[in-house]
């Protein structure tokens, strides 16, 4: 909990602002990426404790970004949560199958979000 760094991948400015403000207000440090490419770069560079990954990104799909993170040994063990507006029934299972460690649907419930983040911050499987 003590100032762990979370990489937020989100292309919508308002939502980015919401996640950043909430996480910082809770005591986390944040890294911000608005594209998949940026996210990969930042994750490699900083090795964040957790990644909140939007699925629809301008340059690539969140699922693809995840698989690239998994392929790089430096980022392979960073837990990644899917945060998506693709909230149809059955989607959460689909994302877990794809390799995400958790799933939060938009619109997010702040309490649920913070609970989930706290659960996964200690490392993968934590």
């Amino acid at each position, binding site marked *: 909990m003590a100032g762990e760094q979370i990489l937020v991948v989100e292309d919508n400015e308002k*939502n980015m602002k919401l996640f950043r403000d909430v996480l910082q207000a809770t005591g986390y440090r944040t890294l911000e990426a608005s594209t998949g490419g940026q996210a990969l770069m930042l994750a490699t560079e900083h090795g964040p404790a957790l990644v909140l990954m939007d699925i629809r990104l301008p340059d690539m799909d969140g699922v693809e970004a995840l698989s690239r993170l998994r392929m790089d040994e430096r980022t392979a063990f960073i837990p990644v949560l899917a945060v998506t507006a693709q909230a149809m029934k059955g989607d959460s299972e689909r994302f877990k199958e794809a390799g995400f460690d958790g799933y939060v649907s938009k619109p997010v419930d702040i*309490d649920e979000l913070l609970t989930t983040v706290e659960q996964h911050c200690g490392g993968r499987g934590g």
Partner: protein
Amino acid sequence: MEPPARPHHRLIWKYTVVVVTLVAAAIVSVGVIESYFSYQDSTRAVTGVAADKASSAAVSIDQFIQEILGDLESVAQPTVDPGGPERLQSFRGLLGRQKLVSQLTYLDSSGKECVRAYSFEINQVDSRTCGSDRSTSQEFIRARAEQQYFGSVAFDERDGRAHMTIAVTEDAPGEGVIVADVDLRSVREAIDRARIGTAGYAYAVDAQGELIAHPDINLVLAHTSFAALPHVRAALTGAAAAPADVVTTGRDPDGREVLSAFHSVEPPGWWVFVEEPLTEAFAPIESAIWRTVLLLVVFLILAVVTSVLLARNLVRPIESIQAAAAKIGSGALDQRIEVSSRDELGALADEFNRMAARLHTFYAGLEQQVQERTRELATALAELDEKTRELEAASHHKSEFLANMSHELRTPLNAINGFSQVLRRQLFGEINEKQAEYLDDILGSARHLLSLIDDVLDLSKVEAGQIDLQVAAFSLPGALERGVVIVRERATKGGVRVSLSSDPGVDTVMGDERRIRQVIFNLLSNAVKFTPAGGTVDIAAAQLDGEVRVSVSDTGPGIAPDDQGRIFDEFQQAAAGKEQREGTGLGLALSKRLVELHGGRIWVDSELGKGSTFVFTLPAQPA
């Protein structure tokens, strides 16, 4: 099913047998009748000839006898001197005149021979006038007694010539007897003339049956008697006196069968027989019969050949009609019959051909129609396919659009909801009561908007057939309980009592549990929503007619009959729903689709002011 094949007999043999039988019967009967009558005629002719011959021979012998008798009468005139020159003179005249009398003798009334004249020594006269006594001779006694006397026939030893003694009495008053020796060559000639055919012959016998004349002179010389032959005896004894028996059959001395005709010569009591071997007599008749038989056979063969040909001509068109019919029957509709005869069979063939042609045309038309229809059907199917693809594409686009829209709506909704929550939780400073109330309103509206988005998405998925039911066994009472738990908080807040009752028989059912729970929740939340404080909501499950029936009853305002049909349509709400300005108007439509996907039904029983009961069923599960 084809009828069992009957054994077929060939028509041609039937016709042939019938025609041959008829023709043969006609020919044979005509032949037999003809032969019979011709036999009769021929027999009559043959026997007629024989009888005529016999009769004419008898007549000529009779004439000869009468002539001789007449001659003797002419010299039997009494003379002054019975044995005088006057008598001699008349004897000489007769002997000169009649060559067949070779000797004349005059016996006077006492039987003494007075005059004797010989023809071979013309005019020689034995002058032993009234010399030897012949008063005891047969010729004297019999002639004196019967006026006439015919002696037995005698034969010259040297040349075999037959001669006999004939005596007549002198006309009164002398009553002498004139005795003549008569040459019988005329008899022989008459007999010779009377022979018939080539093997036929005639003969004459005297009253005792002894031969007088016969072609075989040896028989005559031997004094053969035919009296032993039955037909001769019959004639002699008069047993065959009846005219019909004048012609008869008998056997000659050699035992051959002969046709025999006879006639008497009276006097001197002789019989003339004309005979012919039956083999010869009836030879023409037999040959006529054989001719008839031969003709019969020839005509019979002709009849058989003709009737076979006739029958073939008769049967061949029938056979070709039959063959063509069989071919048409087996599908060769262009088959035609070739029958050229201009009769009923030809007419039948023409009619048959017409029928086959019409059948062909009709069939061809039918095939064409079927082909056309098939083409039309194929076209329609292709069009349908195209439409289906278009519809699928449209449906796909619609789903994609809805998914996109859902995503696009959720993104700003995330910000609205998130920031409101942040403010409401006072993460960045205190807010007053009014501000908190407004934030709650914003959050409520956001939730409403979200459920609206979810329902639209679900409904469109159901309509596009994109929902796959995850069918498994689940506990229906459990699902009901969870529904009740979810709405209880709101019900308690609104002063509505919620109760659950489930039949003991209701337990596990097959279905998509999440979707059924969605339906239960939908019905329950509607009921709670529309039931005023102090009211009740009952949810019950029961087994009925093999289906599970879940009913949700409330004590709400009820639904007008007009609205009851509409509320299951999209975006249709009853009056109460509109007033509340809450709910998406999609819940019942979605519930209906989900229940129907499970093979069940959903409906409402309601009366304005008396509450509503929503019922859905799930079909019976296989045990």
